[in-house]
């Protein structure tokens, strides 16, 4: 099944049979209404606003990673690096440099995104498993820097002593912060959606499908994977920056390979060929983490079981399963 098609509606005026866009447009409106009204009903279903904020942050990171993973076909085990750099960028800016939350977020995003832009081309020069290995190695490099550079980063204890500042006089309590995160989630999603519906995104998907064919059409495939890597790094760094705002704290855990793995799980669980897949993946992941970790410390075991079952029975992920469409 072609999943890019589900996010790539053609002009309705075209003569060919068009795809069932109205349903997905309705779905999008329902999703938007649910997200916008969430603070008003979340407590009635046993949740709380910060939990929803966390879901959105991980969903955004998962969607960013998924541009590379699901839509370009590049398996990165090191995207925690960009998440972590985003979070440290925000933390350090707020702690030492600025009272502007937005400026801190901008700097964090640029730092993480630039790192991906500079390091992506190195990883891209290798194929398959070697590509993945290099992404891990690069990721771990930042982890060790954060652990060792105690004076700046707070080392293993993490970086505390900063807090998100009011924006234009509006304090960022749980609800306001949620809306700030929702805005950036929406922006990130819009950027990804726009790219995936443009020639650049079509090129990414074609790389996933058949590098050889594209090479023999005259495309420098490595260059485009590096571009996908870079964009994906910026989005993941933005998510990391938002996470630092949510926690008023960051630590080397946000740079560690376990987080890279978790982001992969989020993308695969939700359906990595599906645009909104990581949102579903993040919802499951964060809910399990929140509820099960109250009961047992081995909440990862539960995630692991869910992951195995889902990969075995719903290889296209949660949304892939529900979104199964018949084609003419």
């Amino acid at each position, binding site marked *: 099944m072609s999943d890019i098609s589900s996010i790539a509606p053609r002009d309705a005026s075209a003569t060919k049979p068009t795809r069932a866009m109205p349903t997905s447009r309705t779905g999008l409106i329902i999703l938007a209404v649910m997200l916008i009204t969430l603070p008003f009903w979340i407590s009635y279903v046993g949740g709380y606003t910060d939990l929803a904020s966390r879901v959105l942050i991980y969903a955004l990171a998962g969607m960013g990673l998924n541009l590379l993973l699901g839509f370009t076909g590049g398996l990165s085990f090191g995207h925690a690096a960009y998440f972590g750099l985003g979070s440290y960028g925000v933390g350090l800016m707020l702690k030492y440099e600025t009272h502007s939350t937005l400026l801190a977020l901008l700097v964090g995003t640029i730092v993480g995104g630039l790192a991906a832009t500079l390091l992506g081309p190195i990883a891209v020069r290798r194929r398959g498993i070697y590509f993945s290995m290099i992404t891990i190695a690069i990721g771990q490099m930042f982890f060790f820097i954060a652990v060792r550079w105690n004076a700046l980063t707070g080392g293993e204890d993490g970086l505390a002593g900063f807090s998100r500042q009011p924006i234009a006089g509006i304090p960022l309590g749980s609800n306001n912060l949620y809306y700030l995160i929702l805005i950036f989630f929406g922006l990130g999603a819009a950027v990804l959606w726009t790219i995936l519906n443009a*020639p650049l995104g079509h090129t990414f998907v074609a790389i996933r499908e058949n590098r050889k*064919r594209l090479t*023999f059409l005259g495309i420098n495939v490595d260059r485009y994977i590096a571009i996908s890597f870079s964009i994906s790094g910026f989005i993941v760094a933005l998510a990391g920056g938002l996470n630092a705002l949510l926690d008023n704290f960051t630590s080397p855990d946000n740079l560690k390979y376990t987080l890279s793995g978790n982001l992969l799980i989020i993308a695969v669980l939700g359906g990595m060929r599906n645009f909104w897949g990581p949102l579903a993946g993040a919802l499951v992941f964060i809910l399990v983490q929140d509820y099960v970790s109250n009961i047992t410390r081995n909440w990862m075991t539960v995630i692991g079981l869910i992951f195995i079952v889902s990969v075995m029975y719903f290889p296209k992920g949660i949304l892939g399963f529900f979104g199964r469409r018949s084609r003419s």
Partner: protein
Amino acid sequence: MSLLQLDHISRRFGAIKALTDISIDVAQGELRAIIGPNGAGKTTLFNLISGFFPPSEGKIIFDGSEITAVSPAILVKRGIIRTFQITEIFLDLTVYENLRVAAETAMGLNLVPFMSRARRQAIESKVDELLDLVKIGGKADRIAGELSHGDQRVVEVGIALSRQPKLLLLDEPTAGMGDEETHHMTGLIRSLNKDQKITILFIEHDMNIVFGVADRITVLDNGTMLAEGNAAEIAANPRVQAAYLGQEA
């Protein structure tokens, strides 16, 4: 006027001599078949011309300039486009999407991150043109991987045509096809050559197709050139009969 000249080309893989001292001249507008038994070196010849790897010896001249050891990406831009013995298309995408990314690539739009209305229309009309050209418009919204083998080959030709080739290399375009599909493909090859004026080299095992379609025929055997000529000459050539036609029968 010759479009492609192979000048004393050889290619070795370690001890294997895949091609030895091959000289071929392909005229502008020609429809040339390359035939020969399995392992004769036909695909290797295409790999050399399309820049997949360079020859061990010899020169390749295309459109007046030497292209020996020039990269595939550059050759594509100069107008040498190929298909593969094993179909190379975008299997999980629809036929339309296959041709769309090909069209966008041909139009040099790959870096464009935002689709404007005008651009979308320009792309769509180019894709529709390609769909018409290979006559697969009726299956535009089908997933390429779910199509018959023959239709997948047609999609691959459509992808190749997006780049407006001067020289089209087709590696066994009709292999594994049923009669009807073969008929469609040979009709397509002929019309691309006669109507679109594309010089075509195609590798083919089916003698009926070769004799029925090609202007000229080059016969390879065991890495060497056995014969070259039109259908009548090749059919009458005793060396060809001994080495190749005899085996086929």
